């Protein structure tokens, strides 16, 4: 599971609608896999990404220290875009769990696959 995907996920347990984001990553295995760098794509994704969630997750996993505030324009920000690319596209949670900050529900990640299914009562 890429950190891009993690940034899009929220807890969806029934009734858990506040303080359900971001899911805290308790990873036992995080790997780096190279991916093609596309600055336009990264810039586009920045409209969708919750920056603070990405920044704190990247820092907690020891992947990168991203700046607190993004520049108004990403023009000429090649180095920063590459750093964001590394975090979003190249960092994979392989094993561990994603924990809801509100209800403490745990979603398991195994061999890079997150299991986001809930049992019937939780839906």
């Amino acid at each position: 599971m890429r950190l891009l995907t993690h940034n899009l996920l929220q807890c969806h347990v029934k009734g858990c609608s506040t303080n359900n984001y971001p899911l805290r990553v308790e990873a036992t295995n995080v790997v780096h896999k190279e991916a093609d760098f596309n600055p336009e794509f990264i810039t586009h994704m920045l409209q969708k990404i919750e920056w603070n969630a990405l920044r704190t997750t990247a820092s907690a996993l020891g992947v990168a220290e991203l700046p607190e505030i993004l520049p108004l324009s990403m023009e000429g920000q090649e180095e920063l875009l590459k750093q964001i690319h590394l975090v979003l596209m190249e960092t994979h949670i392989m094993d561990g769990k994603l924990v809801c900050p509100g209800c403490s529900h745990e979603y398991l990640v195994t061999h890079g696959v997150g299991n986001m299914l809930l049992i019937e009562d939780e839906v």
Partner: protein
Amino acid sequence: MPCRVPSEHQAITKLSTCNNSTPGDVLSNVPAKQITRRTTGSSAALPATLDQDILTDASTAAAAENSFVHDVYNAIADHFSDTRYKPWPVVDGFLGSLPAGSLLADVGCGNGKYLGVNPSVMGIGCDRSDALIGICNNRGFESLVADNLSLPFRSGLFDAAISIAVIHHLVTEERRLAAMAEIVRLLRPGGRLLVFVWALEQDKFGSSNTTQDLFVPWKLRSSTPAATASVAPSTAQEPRVFNRFYHLFKSGELEMLASRLANVRVLRSGYDRDNWYIILERQ
């Protein structure tokens, strides 16, 4: 080869083409209410006969989908995946039209055959079957296990979504509607959704068929080891038969469901290769 299917499956024995030597989809008209389910195994929550009551009660509906959709896809995942490699033209066209850098959700992505169609798009797949998602993951596609009635994504972020041959596996109209609403929730304003479902009108079911809720057996080729042993009868020599629930959509039915969704407009709808499809845009 003699057709020896255990007695629990007599309804299928009578109606399906069990002498067909080709594994995979065995197309036949087996109305859902004629199937008597197995009385053994872990699905004891289901009543002994699958009838219309199941199709209207929410908890039994979920149990029926577990037995007749989720368990089956997990068991047939490898074989199913081997037969799913050719994208459909309308789906290809939709994916090809997405601007570079679009974020795409493939809800019910199966083996991920659409996740690589447009490499300039970032696709995230999800499926209820962990066995199929395992195949996606091995192919390097970003994917996770999730239920299309309760998706784990924040709202309003995706530029596009597809639901190909998925919601026809849900056993009630309300659940099919809820699945569409849940995918629409993921889309940003202006984001687009393509839905494909099997059509009642397709030739292979015969022009006189009017049964919308039915079982379509899948014959698992005997060389494939099943992922789970609990969902179908088996003998050493014969292919194992798994029944999948389908709701066949009538002409106009997708449009009717779409008309009950808030915040969407229909861009296009039509018939393609035995399926009805619709393209919606989030307002």
